């Protein structure tokens, strides 16, 4: 937890289970820090306005649009990016169901879906739709994405995740 940050400085971020140091301004977003300081380019800059969901990562297990979170806010929290997933069922199902075309939105969709799978492994259709509406796919692969999430949910087991803080 950072007490105060009045100018550019080094912060420690827990990303994908590793403690990483990043030189950031207090005004830098988590998305900027991940991509430009840590070289983790899986989270994509899209609208950078919280609309498209391409930059979605998990923070303490919950999907967060990293363009709308300051990097300094993430200190003391566990950040998980697409690079932190290791052949997770949701990744396999995206391939199996052809749930992407250009792929730009895919990391954001997968991280959002991974959050859903962790938190609500028993999610019904309404909940799946509600969660997936946070992300936009310009190639309109929505049906295939929905099918991939449902298949991955069949393989899910509950994981304890506290509400976002």
């Amino acid at each position, binding site marked *: 937890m950072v007490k105060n940050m009045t*100018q550019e400085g080094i912060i420690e971020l827990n990303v994908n289970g590793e403690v990483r140091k990043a030189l950031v301004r*207090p005004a830098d977003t988590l998305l900027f820090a991940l991509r430009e300081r840590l070289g983790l380019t899986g989270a994509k800059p899209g609208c950078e306005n919280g609309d498209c969901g391409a930059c979605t990562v998990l923070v303490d297990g919950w999907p967060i649009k990293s363009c709308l979170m300051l990097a300094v806010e993430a200190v003391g929290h566990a950040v998980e990016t697409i690079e932190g997933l290791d052949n997770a069922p949701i990744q396999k199902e995206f391939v199996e169901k052809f749930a992407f075309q250009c792929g730009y939105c895919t990391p954001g969709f997968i991280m959002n879906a991974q959050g859903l799978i962790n938190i609500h492994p028993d999610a019904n259709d309404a909940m799946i739709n509600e969660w997936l509406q946070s992300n936009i796919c310009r190639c309109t692969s929505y049906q295939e994405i929905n099918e991939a999430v449902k298949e991955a949910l069949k393989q899910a087991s509950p994981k304890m995740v506290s509400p976002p*803080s």
Partner: protein
Amino acid sequence: MMPFDFEYHHPLTIQEAVTTFARLDMSGKTPKYYGGGTELISMARMNNLSFGSVVDIKDVPECKVLQLDNENLTLGSALTLTQIHENNTFPLLSQSGARVADHTIQNKITLGGNLCGTIIYKETLLPLLLTDSELVLADPSGMRTVKIGDVYRERIELNPFEFIVQVKIPAKYLGVPYFHLKRTKQDKITYPLVTVCALQADNQIRLAFSGLCHFPFRSKEMEKVVNDKSMPMDARIDWAVNCIPTETLDDIEGSFSFRQFVVKIMLYDIINSLGAS
């Protein structure tokens, strides 16, 4: 990338928060209280808002309280809309919050931020107006508890350096029959054409709207008409629409007349759902 620099301050007590804010203000560092930060970040990035510092209150323990006792449901202002929705002690507030932005952003938007932001819709305000909820406020001189109706005049009017610590919702309203409907022009996730919250208390329907005018409101005049069972339902609804307290919005989301048409249909649904028919 954020086009300007600002300082980040992270108090852990109410006293520290208000004194930090006052000190930053007096030293010309134009502070903003910071909860989820979604509106501040998005507006700052577009250069629609500038500030020299933020005071992040989300780790002040009183701002994280979620507690129910015999009198009130107390919600800290830094609770996210998702936390309120997942807890679901007050379903009308849960549903209102669950239609603000999208699900992922609800993991970041806080109750206090939605109430105090510059976006006009503030949909979580509607259940609080209907339940005569109280706000616990803090500034450098101390704390005060006020009825929300006493400080809400088109926006929540706070003293300099003041912020919302908690919202207290009377427990007697948590389980009463309610109605929530958000109508949008097209997409599910967008600003409302009209959002209505209604509940039934003491055998009377209470009504609050967002998106209908340039500020959210509860209208006791509309409630009085809607609850007047001496009149036929059609006449009550026509008259209630005439009691909308100010000019109905007329913009690209919907014309003046279409919004009023939508409100009429909503009123039919509310009366049929909650009684008073």
